[in-house]
């Protein structure tokens, strides 16, 4: 299973998560988002970039409540809330946003 982008083949698992997160690009993120039915805005990118930075530092995709807490700390109360994240990523922020960010599925996320 693979995504096709500019003639390049990018492998993913049965749920659509990238096999090699080193292959992630912003163009690919746009394709992944489209598959999820999401139109990427600056707010979406803010969360996706945050997740990528988190993964880069800790080598794990954060659980949703950890993501909320971290966003609250860096971006304030309004953005650090479940409600805000679900507005951006209706089918589960950890799941959808992580997939778009090219990260593995968060540990413990079913």
């Amino acid at each position, binding site marked *: 299973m693979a995504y096709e982008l500019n003639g390049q083949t990018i492998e993913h698992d049965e749920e659509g998560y990238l096999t090699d997160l080193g292959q992630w690009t912003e163009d690919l993120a746009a394709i992944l988002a489209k598959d999820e039915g999401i139109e990427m805005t600056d707010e979406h990118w803010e969360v996706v970039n945050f997740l990528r930075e988190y993964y880069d530092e*800790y080598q*794990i995709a954060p659980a949703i409540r950890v993501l909320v807490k971290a966003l609250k700390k860096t971006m304030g109360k309004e953005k650090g809330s479940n409600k805000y994240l679900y507005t951006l990523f209706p089918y589960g922020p950890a799941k959808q946003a992580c997939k778009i960010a090219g990260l593995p599925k968060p540990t413990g996320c079913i």
Partner: protein
Amino acid sequence: MQEETIKKFMYMNRKAPYGTIYALEALEVVLIGAAFDQDVSLAFLDDGVFQLVEGQDTDGIGVKNFSPAFRALGDYDVTKLFVEKESLEERGLSPDDLMELVWEDEDDDWAEKPSIRIVTRDELKSILGDQDVILSF
């Protein structure tokens, strides 16, 4: 109304990080289990103390270096990592050889506080005796 009972959960780590899958699996269980709002602590003893050694670089062995994830434990409200002094000494290690792990106290203006507590074997023994659930890896 049902009273929520908080149990004391201890994850005991006794294996070195890369020779077997135990250490990584234990860490994943801790991260998953953190969602259940229990009183969680970790113990590192025997070869488990090698998991916390600073400066791990797995590029040459084609295995993921999962040690940075220990730095995320504070975000998961896992703030008690007991490391056995005797196990360190037997392996020629001192606390200075370990990663500096901290957690941020939200109630104290995000002040950084150390997560690692060096304890003697006897102290660890009594901490173990105090637990409701012990999971050994």
